[in-house]
Protein backbone atom coordinates (compact mmCIF):
# COMPACT_ATOMS: atom_id res chain seq x y z
CA UNK A 1 0.00 0.00 0.00
CA UNK A 2 1.43 3.31 -1.02
CA UNK A 3 0.96 6.27 1.26
CA UNK A 4 1.85 9.61 -0.24
CA UNK A 5 1.49 12.76 1.79
CA UNK A 6 2.07 15.42 -0.79
CA UNK A 7 -0.65 18.03 -0.93
CA UNK A 8 -2.08 19.43 -4.08
CA UNK A 9 -1.48 23.02 -3.12
CA UNK A 10 2.19 22.55 -3.82
CA UNK A 11 1.84 23.31 -7.48
CA UNK A 12 0.54 26.78 -6.71
CA UNK A 13 3.28 27.44 -4.22
CA UNK A 14 5.85 26.28 -6.69
CA UNK A 15 4.71 28.68 -9.30
CA UNK A 16 4.90 31.50 -6.81
CA UNK A 17 8.44 30.60 -5.87
CA UNK A 18 9.52 30.23 -9.41
CA UNK A 19 7.86 33.43 -10.46
CA UNK A 20 9.24 35.68 -7.74
CA UNK A 21 12.81 34.77 -8.54
CA UNK A 22 13.78 34.60 -4.91
CA UNK A 23 17.21 33.20 -4.22
CA UNK A 24 18.11 31.16 -1.23
CA UNK A 25 20.13 32.49 1.62
CA UNK A 26 23.78 31.68 1.29
CA UNK A 27 24.59 30.86 4.86
CA UNK A 28 27.10 28.20 4.03
CA UNK A 29 25.14 25.38 5.58
CA UNK A 30 24.71 23.09 3.77
CA UNK A 31 27.91 23.86 1.96
CA UNK A 32 27.89 21.12 -0.66
CA UNK A 33 26.30 23.28 -3.26
CA UNK A 34 28.49 22.33 -6.17
CA UNK A 35 28.11 24.33 -9.36
CA UNK A 36 24.85 26.15 -8.88
CA UNK A 37 22.38 26.62 -11.64
CA UNK A 38 19.35 27.19 -9.42
CA UNK A 39 18.72 28.43 -5.92
CA UNK A 40 17.21 25.67 -3.84
CA UNK A 41 14.55 25.92 -1.18
CA UNK A 42 11.87 23.79 0.34
CA UNK A 43 8.19 24.43 0.80
CA UNK A 44 6.48 22.46 3.55
CA UNK A 45 3.06 20.98 3.05
CA UNK A 46 2.25 21.90 6.62
CA UNK A 47 4.08 25.02 7.74
CA UNK A 48 2.22 25.19 11.06
CA UNK A 49 2.25 21.68 12.49
CA UNK A 50 0.02 20.68 15.35
CA UNK A 51 0.50 18.03 18.00
CA UNK A 52 0.83 14.62 16.42
CA UNK A 53 2.33 15.93 13.20
CA UNK A 54 5.56 14.80 11.64
CA UNK A 55 6.55 17.28 8.98
CA UNK A 56 9.26 18.15 6.54
CA UNK A 57 10.37 21.75 6.93
CA UNK A 58 12.96 23.92 5.29
CA UNK A 59 16.25 24.15 7.11
CA UNK A 60 19.33 25.93 5.95
CA UNK A 61 20.04 26.30 2.27
CA UNK A 62 23.00 27.16 0.15
CA UNK A 63 23.01 27.69 -3.57
CA UNK A 64 21.34 24.66 -5.11
CA UNK A 65 21.23 22.63 -1.92
CA UNK A 66 18.64 22.71 0.80
CA UNK A 67 18.47 21.00 4.14
CA UNK A 68 15.09 19.51 5.00
CA UNK A 69 14.22 19.11 8.66
CA UNK A 70 12.22 16.12 9.75
CA UNK A 71 10.28 17.67 12.59
CA UNK A 72 8.15 16.05 15.25
CA UNK A 73 5.51 18.02 17.11
CA UNK A 74 3.83 17.00 20.33
CA UNK A 75 4.63 13.30 20.32
CA UNK A 76 5.63 11.27 23.35
CA UNK A 77 7.91 8.29 23.74
CA UNK A 78 9.79 8.65 20.46
CA UNK A 79 12.48 6.01 20.25
CA UNK A 80 13.06 5.73 16.53
CA UNK A 81 11.77 6.46 13.08
CA UNK A 82 11.44 4.63 9.82
CA UNK A 83 10.25 6.08 6.57
CA UNK A 84 11.01 6.45 2.89
CA UNK A 85 11.25 9.68 0.96
CA UNK A 86 10.40 9.54 -2.71
CA UNK A 87 11.37 12.23 -5.20
CA UNK A 88 12.01 12.78 -8.87
CA UNK A 89 15.64 11.81 -9.33
CA UNK A 90 15.92 13.78 -12.55
CA UNK A 91 15.14 16.99 -10.63
CA UNK A 92 16.32 16.35 -7.10
CA UNK A 93 19.36 14.59 -5.76
CA UNK A 94 19.82 13.27 -2.25
CA UNK A 95 23.03 14.64 -0.78
CA UNK A 96 23.29 13.46 2.80
CA UNK A 97 21.90 13.50 6.29
CA UNK A 98 22.78 14.79 9.71
CA UNK A 99 21.53 14.60 13.26
CA UNK A 100 18.61 16.44 14.76
CA UNK A 101 18.03 17.15 18.43
CA UNK A 102 15.16 14.90 19.47
CA UNK A 103 16.90 11.58 19.69
CA UNK A 104 20.00 13.17 21.25
CA UNK A 105 18.02 14.03 24.37
CA UNK A 106 20.00 13.21 27.49
CA UNK A 107 23.32 13.40 25.64
CA UNK A 108 22.40 10.19 23.90
CA UNK A 109 24.15 9.15 20.70
CA UNK A 110 21.55 7.82 18.31
CA UNK A 111 22.09 6.09 15.00
CA UNK A 112 21.08 7.44 11.63
CA UNK A 113 21.12 5.57 8.39
CA UNK A 114 19.92 6.34 4.91
CA UNK A 115 19.81 3.65 2.29
CA UNK A 116 17.61 2.67 -0.57
CA UNK A 117 18.10 3.86 -4.11
CA UNK A 118 18.81 7.58 -4.14
CA UNK A 119 19.63 7.40 -7.81
CA UNK A 120 16.18 6.04 -8.46
CA UNK A 121 14.51 8.66 -6.31
CA UNK A 122 13.87 6.75 -3.16
CA UNK A 123 15.72 6.83 0.13
CA UNK A 124 15.01 4.61 3.09
CA UNK A 125 15.58 6.40 6.36
CA UNK A 126 16.31 5.07 9.81
CA UNK A 127 16.90 7.09 12.94
CA UNK A 128 16.88 5.67 16.40
CA UNK A 129 18.06 5.87 19.93
CA UNK A 130 20.21 2.92 20.84
CA UNK A 131 19.96 0.34 23.57
CA UNK A 132 17.90 0.25 26.72
CA UNK A 133 17.10 3.92 26.97
CA UNK A 134 13.74 5.60 27.17
CA UNK A 135 11.97 7.28 24.33
CA UNK A 136 11.78 11.04 24.14
CA UNK A 137 8.72 13.13 24.89
CA UNK A 138 8.63 15.93 22.37
CA UNK A 139 6.71 18.89 23.73
CA UNK A 140 6.48 21.51 21.04
CA UNK A 141 8.55 20.83 17.96
CA UNK A 142 11.87 19.07 17.71
CA UNK A 143 14.01 17.95 14.81
CA UNK A 144 14.45 14.26 14.31
CA UNK A 145 17.13 14.61 11.65
CA UNK A 146 18.11 16.60 8.59
CA UNK A 147 18.11 15.43 5.00
CA UNK A 148 19.94 17.43 2.35
CA UNK A 149 18.94 17.60 -1.28
CA UNK A 150 20.35 19.26 -4.33
CA UNK A 151 17.84 20.73 -6.74
CA UNK A 152 18.91 20.25 -10.33
CA UNK A 153 16.31 22.21 -12.24
CA UNK A 154 13.86 25.05 -12.00
CA UNK A 155 10.43 24.18 -10.71
CA UNK A 156 8.68 22.61 -7.78
CA UNK A 157 9.31 18.97 -7.17
CA UNK A 158 7.06 17.22 -4.70
CA UNK A 159 8.48 14.74 -2.27
CA UNK A 160 6.44 11.97 -0.75
CA UNK A 161 6.83 10.24 2.54
CA UNK A 162 6.02 6.60 2.39
CA UNK A 163 5.69 3.75 4.87
CA UNK A 164 6.30 6.13 7.76
CA UNK A 165 6.51 5.15 11.40
CA UNK A 166 7.69 6.65 14.63
CA UNK A 167 8.36 3.86 17.05
CA UNK A 168 8.13 3.90 20.82
CA UNK A 169 10.54 2.46 23.35
CA UNK A 170 8.71 -0.79 24.00
CA UNK A 171 10.88 -3.88 24.27
CA UNK A 172 9.93 -4.49 20.68
CA UNK A 173 9.42 -0.94 19.43
CA UNK A 174 5.91 -0.38 18.18
CA UNK A 175 4.64 2.29 15.79
CA UNK A 176 3.10 5.24 17.57
CA UNK A 177 -0.43 5.67 16.39
CA UNK A 178 -2.42 8.81 15.63
CA UNK A 179 0.30 10.62 13.75
CA UNK A 180 -0.06 12.64 10.57
CA UNK A 181 2.87 12.91 8.23
CA UNK A 182 3.34 15.87 5.91
CA UNK A 183 5.94 16.17 3.21
CA UNK A 184 6.69 19.11 0.95
CA UNK A 185 8.40 20.13 -2.24
CA UNK A 186 11.90 21.00 -3.20
CA UNK A 187 12.00 24.15 -5.27
CA UNK A 188 14.57 25.37 -7.75
CA UNK A 189 14.59 28.99 -8.85
CA UNK A 190 16.85 30.31 -11.58
CA UNK A 191 19.76 32.22 -10.16
Amino acid sequence: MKRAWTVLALAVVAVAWTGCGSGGSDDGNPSDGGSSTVAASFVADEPAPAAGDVTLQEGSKSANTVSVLVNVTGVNDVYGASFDVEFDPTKVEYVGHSAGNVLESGSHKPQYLVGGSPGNGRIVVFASRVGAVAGVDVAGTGTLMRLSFRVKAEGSFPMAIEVPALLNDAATPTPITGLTWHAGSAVGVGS
Partner: protein
Amino acid sequence: MAKRFAAVWCMAMGLWLAGAASAGEIGLTWSSSSGAAGYKVHYGTSPGVYSKTVDVGNVTTTKVSGLTDCSTWYFAVSAYNAAGTSEYSNEVGSWPRTTVSALNPGAIKQGSQPTLSFDGANFDTSKEWEVVITPEPCVPDAGAPGGKRCYLYNVQKPTATCNRVQVVETVEPTAGSVRPAMVGTYQMSLRAKDGTRQTASKPFKVDINPARFDVNKSDDVTKNRLDGKDAVWMAKRFGVQEGGATYDPGFDFDGDGWIDGDDLAHLASNLGGCWTGSAWNMNACIANLQ
Protein backbone atom coordinates in the same frame (compact mmCIF):
# COMPACT_ATOMS: atom_id res chain seq x y z
CA MET B 1 76.12 -67.56 17.37
CA ALA B 2 73.77 -65.59 15.14
CA LYS B 3 70.71 -66.97 16.86
CA ARG B 4 71.91 -65.94 20.34
CA PHE B 5 72.78 -62.51 19.04
CA ALA B 6 69.32 -62.17 17.52
CA ALA B 7 67.56 -63.17 20.68
CA VAL B 8 69.13 -60.31 22.58
CA TRP B 9 68.01 -57.93 19.92
CA CYS B 10 64.45 -59.15 19.97
CA MET B 11 64.13 -58.24 23.58
CA ALA B 12 65.48 -54.77 22.97
CA MET B 13 63.54 -53.76 19.88
CA GLY B 14 60.08 -52.27 19.80
CA LEU B 15 58.26 -51.22 16.64
CA TRP B 16 55.62 -48.52 16.35
CA LEU B 17 53.66 -46.79 13.67
CA ALA B 18 54.65 -43.21 13.05
CA GLY B 19 53.35 -40.35 10.99
CA ALA B 20 53.87 -40.36 7.28
CA ALA B 21 53.62 -37.75 4.61
CA SER B 22 51.02 -38.92 2.17
CA ALA B 23 48.62 -41.61 1.05
CA GLY B 24 50.20 -44.93 0.21
CA GLU B 25 52.74 -44.54 2.97
CA ILE B 26 53.16 -45.82 6.48
CA GLY B 27 55.69 -44.43 8.92
CA LEU B 28 57.54 -46.71 11.27
CA THR B 29 59.88 -46.17 14.16
CA TRP B 30 61.66 -48.62 16.41
CA SER B 31 64.05 -48.66 19.27
CA SER B 32 67.70 -49.18 18.46
CA SER B 33 69.59 -52.33 19.28
CA SER B 34 73.11 -52.12 20.45
CA GLY B 35 75.58 -53.54 17.98
CA ALA B 36 73.27 -53.22 15.00
CA ALA B 37 74.86 -52.22 11.72
CA GLY B 38 71.48 -51.68 10.08
CA TYR B 39 67.82 -52.64 9.92
CA LYS B 40 65.48 -54.30 7.48
CA VAL B 41 61.76 -53.66 7.27
CA HIS B 42 59.63 -56.63 6.30
CA TYR B 43 56.03 -56.20 5.26
CA GLY B 44 53.06 -57.76 3.57
CA THR B 45 49.27 -57.81 3.60
CA SER B 46 48.87 -60.89 5.80
CA PRO B 47 49.91 -61.11 9.44
CA GLY B 48 53.27 -62.81 9.81
CA VAL B 49 53.74 -63.18 6.08
CA TYR B 50 56.19 -60.62 4.73
CA SER B 51 56.39 -60.63 0.98
CA LYS B 52 58.59 -57.58 0.78
CA THR B 53 61.79 -56.54 2.53
CA VAL B 54 63.71 -53.31 2.34
CA ASP B 55 67.10 -52.55 3.87
CA VAL B 56 66.77 -49.08 5.37
CA GLY B 57 70.30 -48.84 6.76
CA ASN B 58 71.27 -47.85 10.25
CA VAL B 59 68.24 -45.71 11.10
CA THR B 60 65.38 -46.19 13.51
CA THR B 61 62.62 -44.51 11.56
CA THR B 62 61.44 -44.78 7.99
CA LYS B 63 58.52 -44.39 5.66
CA VAL B 64 57.42 -47.29 3.55
CA SER B 65 55.78 -46.14 0.36
CA GLY B 66 54.07 -47.72 -2.59
CA LEU B 67 51.46 -49.36 -0.41
CA THR B 68 48.03 -50.14 -1.77
CA ASP B 69 45.45 -47.89 -0.15
CA CYS B 70 42.59 -49.13 1.93
CA SER B 71 44.11 -52.40 3.02
CA THR B 72 45.98 -53.44 6.13
CA TRP B 73 49.73 -53.80 5.87
CA TYR B 74 51.76 -55.70 8.47
CA PHE B 75 55.32 -54.81 9.42
CA ALA B 76 58.22 -56.19 11.37
CA VAL B 77 61.82 -55.06 11.66
CA SER B 78 65.02 -57.04 12.00
CA ALA B 79 68.50 -55.85 12.81
CA TYR B 80 71.71 -57.05 11.25
CA ASN B 81 75.44 -56.85 11.66
CA ALA B 82 78.43 -58.90 10.63
CA ALA B 83 77.33 -61.65 12.93
CA GLY B 84 74.00 -62.13 11.20
CA THR B 85 70.37 -61.05 11.31
CA SER B 86 68.12 -60.88 14.32
CA GLU B 87 64.65 -62.29 14.65
CA TYR B 88 61.70 -60.14 13.78
CA SER B 89 60.53 -57.49 16.12
CA ASN B 90 56.92 -57.33 17.21
CA GLU B 91 54.46 -56.87 14.36
CA VAL B 92 52.37 -53.81 13.71
CA GLY B 93 49.59 -53.49 11.18
CA SER B 94 47.82 -50.53 9.69
CA TRP B 95 46.17 -49.00 6.70
CA PRO B 96 48.36 -46.48 4.95
CA ARG B 97 48.15 -42.96 6.19
CA THR B 98 44.74 -41.33 6.09
CA THR B 99 44.69 -38.21 3.99
CA VAL B 100 42.05 -35.65 3.10
CA SER B 101 42.35 -34.09 -0.32
CA ALA B 102 39.14 -32.04 -0.31
CA LEU B 103 36.25 -30.95 1.84
CA ASN B 104 33.00 -30.11 0.09
CA PRO B 105 31.20 -27.87 0.34
CA GLY B 106 33.85 -25.55 1.67
CA ALA B 107 31.39 -22.84 2.59
CA ILE B 108 27.84 -22.82 3.81
CA LYS B 109 25.35 -20.27 5.08
CA GLN B 110 24.02 -20.12 8.58
CA GLY B 111 20.80 -21.97 9.10
CA SER B 112 21.44 -25.10 7.12
CA GLN B 113 22.36 -28.74 7.50
CA PRO B 114 24.71 -29.63 4.68
CA THR B 115 26.23 -33.02 4.12
CA LEU B 116 29.97 -32.54 4.22
CA SER B 117 32.19 -34.87 2.26
CA PHE B 118 35.79 -35.41 3.22
CA ASP B 119 37.39 -36.94 0.15
CA GLY B 120 40.74 -38.63 0.42
CA ALA B 121 42.20 -42.02 1.12
CA ASN B 122 42.38 -44.65 3.78
CA PHE B 123 39.43 -43.80 5.95
CA ASP B 124 39.63 -47.05 7.84
CA THR B 125 36.08 -48.34 7.90
CA SER B 126 36.72 -50.36 11.03
CA LYS B 127 37.22 -47.18 13.01
CA GLU B 128 34.77 -44.64 14.32
CA TRP B 129 35.52 -41.19 12.97
CA GLU B 130 34.73 -37.81 14.41
CA VAL B 131 34.98 -34.28 13.07
CA VAL B 132 37.33 -31.92 14.84
CA ILE B 133 36.61 -28.22 14.37
CA THR B 134 38.94 -25.40 15.36
CA PRO B 135 38.39 -22.95 16.80
CA GLU B 136 35.85 -24.84 18.83
CA PRO B 137 32.44 -23.50 17.77
CA CYS B 138 30.92 -23.63 21.22
CA VAL B 139 30.08 -21.32 24.06
CA PRO B 140 29.94 -22.10 27.78
CA ASP B 141 26.51 -23.14 28.94
CA ALA B 142 26.14 -24.62 32.38
CA GLY B 143 22.80 -26.13 31.45
CA ALA B 144 24.07 -27.96 28.38
CA PRO B 145 25.70 -31.39 28.25
CA GLY B 146 29.40 -31.00 28.88
CA GLY B 147 28.87 -27.44 30.04
CA LYS B 148 28.96 -26.04 26.54
CA ARG B 149 26.63 -25.42 23.66
CA CYS B 150 27.84 -25.61 20.10
CA TYR B 151 26.47 -23.86 17.06
CA LEU B 152 28.34 -25.95 14.54
CA TYR B 153 28.14 -29.67 15.05
CA ASN B 154 27.33 -32.97 13.38
CA VAL B 155 24.07 -34.60 14.25
CA GLN B 156 25.12 -38.21 13.72
CA LYS B 157 28.25 -40.28 13.44
CA PRO B 158 30.18 -39.82 10.25
CA THR B 159 29.91 -42.61 7.73
CA ALA B 160 33.15 -43.83 6.19
CA THR B 161 34.12 -45.57 3.04
CA CYS B 162 37.69 -46.05 1.93
CA ASN B 163 37.86 -42.74 0.08
CA ARG B 164 35.17 -40.63 1.69
CA VAL B 165 33.75 -39.69 5.05
CA GLN B 166 30.40 -37.98 5.07
CA VAL B 167 28.75 -36.17 7.90
CA VAL B 168 25.64 -34.05 8.26
CA GLU B 169 26.71 -30.81 9.84
CA THR B 170 24.35 -28.44 11.59
CA VAL B 171 25.08 -24.79 11.01
CA GLU B 172 22.81 -22.95 13.42
CA PRO B 173 20.24 -21.54 13.54
CA THR B 174 18.25 -24.30 11.91
CA ALA B 175 15.22 -23.78 14.10
CA GLY B 176 13.94 -21.69 16.94
CA SER B 177 15.74 -18.99 18.79
CA VAL B 178 19.27 -20.30 19.02
CA ARG B 179 22.53 -18.56 18.66
CA PRO B 180 23.68 -18.56 15.06
CA ALA B 181 26.94 -20.07 13.99
CA MET B 182 29.63 -17.44 14.12
CA VAL B 183 30.65 -16.47 10.63
CA GLY B 184 34.23 -17.03 9.63
CA THR B 185 36.59 -19.74 8.59
CA TYR B 186 37.05 -22.87 10.64
CA GLN B 187 39.46 -25.73 10.23
CA MET B 188 37.95 -29.17 10.00
CA SER B 189 39.77 -32.45 10.31
CA LEU B 190 38.87 -36.06 10.96
CA ARG B 191 40.07 -38.04 13.91
CA ALA B 192 39.62 -41.71 14.70
CA LYS B 193 38.02 -42.01 18.10
CA ASP B 194 40.64 -44.50 19.18
CA GLY B 195 43.21 -41.79 18.70
CA THR B 196 45.18 -43.61 16.04
CA ARG B 197 44.37 -41.31 13.16
CA GLN B 198 44.19 -37.55 12.71
CA THR B 199 44.00 -35.98 9.30
CA ALA B 200 45.26 -32.63 8.24
CA SER B 201 42.59 -29.97 8.36
CA LYS B 202 40.68 -28.28 5.59
CA PRO B 203 39.08 -24.86 5.78
CA PHE B 204 35.34 -24.56 6.13
CA LYS B 205 33.66 -21.19 5.90
CA VAL B 206 30.44 -20.20 7.58
CA ASP B 207 28.77 -17.39 5.69
CA ILE B 208 26.18 -15.02 7.01
CA ASN B 209 22.65 -15.75 5.92
CA PRO B 210 21.16 -12.49 4.68
CA ALA B 211 17.64 -13.87 4.82
CA ARG B 212 17.92 -13.43 8.59
CA PHE B 213 18.25 -9.64 8.30
CA ASP B 214 14.51 -9.15 7.98
CA VAL B 215 13.73 -9.12 11.69
CA ASN B 216 10.57 -7.06 11.49
CA LYS B 217 7.71 -8.76 9.73
CA SER B 218 5.01 -6.96 11.59
CA ASP B 219 3.10 -5.76 8.58
CA ASP B 220 2.67 -6.48 4.90
CA VAL B 221 4.75 -3.52 3.82
CA THR B 222 7.86 -4.29 5.81
CA LYS B 223 7.63 -8.01 5.39
CA ASN B 224 10.40 -9.11 3.08
CA ARG B 225 11.79 -5.61 3.12
CA LEU B 226 14.65 -4.12 5.08
CA ASP B 227 13.75 -0.72 6.39
CA GLY B 228 14.03 1.49 9.39
CA LYS B 229 11.72 -0.67 11.45
CA ASP B 230 14.15 -3.53 11.27
CA ALA B 231 16.92 -1.17 12.25
CA VAL B 232 14.97 0.36 15.14
CA TRP B 233 14.22 -3.08 16.49
CA MET B 234 17.89 -3.85 16.34
CA ALA B 235 18.83 -0.53 17.89
CA LYS B 236 16.66 -1.36 20.87
CA ARG B 237 18.86 -4.38 21.53
CA PHE B 238 22.08 -2.70 20.56
CA GLY B 239 25.13 -3.43 22.67
CA VAL B 240 23.65 -6.49 24.35
CA GLN B 241 25.78 -9.58 24.80
CA GLU B 242 24.54 -13.13 24.92
CA GLY B 243 23.34 -13.75 28.44
CA GLY B 244 21.90 -10.27 28.71
CA ALA B 245 18.21 -10.01 29.40
CA THR B 246 17.40 -8.50 26.03
CA TYR B 247 19.78 -10.58 23.94
CA ASP B 248 17.91 -12.01 21.00
CA PRO B 249 19.94 -14.27 18.71
CA GLY B 250 17.71 -13.24 15.85
CA PHE B 251 19.55 -9.92 15.78
CA ASP B 252 23.00 -11.42 16.20
CA PHE B 253 23.54 -11.82 12.50
CA ASP B 254 27.21 -12.70 12.64
CA GLY B 255 26.84 -14.99 15.65
CA ASP B 256 29.57 -13.38 17.69
CA GLY B 257 27.40 -13.19 20.78
CA TRP B 258 26.90 -9.46 20.55
CA ILE B 259 24.23 -7.34 18.95
CA ASP B 260 26.50 -4.61 17.78
CA GLY B 261 27.68 -2.44 14.96
CA ASP B 262 28.72 -5.38 12.84
CA ASP B 263 25.16 -6.58 12.82
CA LEU B 264 23.74 -3.15 12.17
CA ALA B 265 26.18 -2.73 9.31
CA HIS B 266 24.64 -5.71 7.58
CA LEU B 267 21.25 -4.06 7.85
CA ALA B 268 22.60 -0.70 6.81
CA SER B 269 24.26 -1.97 3.68
CA ASN B 270 20.98 -3.51 2.55
CA LEU B 271 18.60 -0.88 3.88
CA GLY B 272 15.76 -0.39 1.44
CA GLY B 273 16.21 -3.74 -0.22
CA CYS B 274 13.58 -6.36 -0.84
CA TRP B 275 14.17 -10.07 -0.73
CA THR B 276 14.61 -11.82 -4.03
CA GLY B 277 15.02 -15.26 -2.59
CA SER B 278 18.76 -15.04 -2.41
CA ALA B 279 19.66 -11.41 -1.71
CA TRP B 280 18.35 -7.97 -0.83
CA ASN B 281 17.79 -5.91 -3.93
CA MET B 282 16.97 -2.21 -3.95
CA ASN B 283 15.12 -2.57 -7.21
CA ALA B 284 12.95 -5.42 -6.06
CA CYS B 285 10.77 -3.27 -3.82
CA ILE B 286 8.69 -1.45 -6.33
CA ALA B 287 5.97 -4.07 -6.49
CA ASN B 288 5.82 -4.26 -2.73
CA LEU B 289 5.24 -0.60 -2.23
CA GLN B 290 2.85 0.35 -4.99
